């Protein structure tokens, strides 16, 4: 028998086996993620979580994110554009999963900025300047604070640093992390659109899920 044929068919069989098993496992993972999201839907939206957009908007994007995560920064303009394209119809609920080292301190900064009504401005500033305060996957809150200082958002920085350490903010992070665990969120960003997780990760998948929710809610 020709050796090349033996070799190539063995390689083809192995790869085909790998591919079909991967598709099967992925399908099962997507199904179980959807089931988990339904079972723990109470963990998706909490009163304490910051919301962007009109509170009554029919389509709710819940994002579990880490301010130090590059992909989260890359996805931010995407969700913002979608909200701008459908004014008043999409709202976004932000949940914190600071998986990066030091990132929890930056979340505290964001929440302290929220107390001064500047959550979105602070988040946008920090995401745009992520390189300046995330070094080798470690978030440096002191540098993040400097970024905020230089951005001239009109934040009361003294109050900001005081508020950062409040137990209320620590409680928000703990609650969000616990909810993330219940929902099986282990990577950032993780999106849920009206309670549904993405079947697989990607910008197109997110847009498809949002379009589907927009259509389902009459638009």
């Amino acid at each position, binding site marked *: 028998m020709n*050796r090349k044929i033996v*070799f190539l068919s063995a*390689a083809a069989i192995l*790869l085909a086996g*790998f591919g079909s*098993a991967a598709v099967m*496992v992925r399908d099962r993972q997507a199904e179980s993620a959807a089931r988990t999201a339904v079972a723990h839907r109470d963990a998706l939206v909490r009163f304490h979580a910051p919301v962007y957009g009109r509170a009554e908007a029919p389509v709710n994007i819940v994002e579990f994110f880490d301010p130090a995560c590059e992909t989260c920064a890359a996805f931010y303009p995407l969700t913002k554009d979608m909200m701008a394209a459908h004014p008043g119809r999409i709202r976004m609920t932000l949940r914190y999963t600071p998986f990066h080292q030091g990132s929890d301190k930056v979340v505290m900064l964001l929440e302290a900025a929220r107390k001064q009504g500047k959550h979105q401005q602070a988040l946008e500033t920090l995401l745009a300047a992520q390189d300046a305060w995330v070094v080798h996957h470690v978030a440096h809150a002191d540098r993040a604070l400097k970024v905020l200082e230089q951005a001239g958002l009109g934040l009361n920085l003294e109050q900001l640093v005081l508020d950062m350490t409040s137990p209320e903010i620590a409680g928000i992070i703990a609650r969000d992390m616990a909810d993330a665990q219940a929902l099986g969120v*282990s990577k950032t960003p993780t999106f849920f659109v009206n309670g549904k997780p993405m079947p697989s990760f990607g910008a197109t998948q997110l847009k498809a899920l949002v379009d589907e929710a927009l259509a389902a809610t009459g638009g």
Partner: protein
Amino acid sequence: MKPTPWALVFGAWLVAAVSTLGALFLSEVMYLPPCLLCWYQRVFMFPLVAVLAVGLFPFDRTVVRYAMPLALAGWLVAVAHVLLMAGLIPEAAIPCTQGVPCSRIDFLLFGFLTLPMLSAVAFSAIGALLAAAHYSSRTDPT
């Protein structure tokens, strides 16, 4: 019928290819993060797929010389990992700090085979097949 040296090296390639795809399946599809020792075993297993495939076409018996050090090194790491899991080597004696402890068992096949055991078996099989190819009668042309 005695297997030809080519068939023996091909067998070693098959073992390496199955092990490589299996390792990739566990980490990339099932999201089991590999621990540090698992990474060292991968470092020696993955290149075997390429090295042995190159040696098969056109068949070059000296491929055994290039592949054997990889198989031996991988075997040593795998055996150390098995001993570590069995508690015969203290974890502190081996650098193991990538967040995933090497002594934790994430996956069991047939209820008793751990991944380091599978890895040790695979490296042993590759080494044995390569040795058989090397020492099979010198007069065999291929």
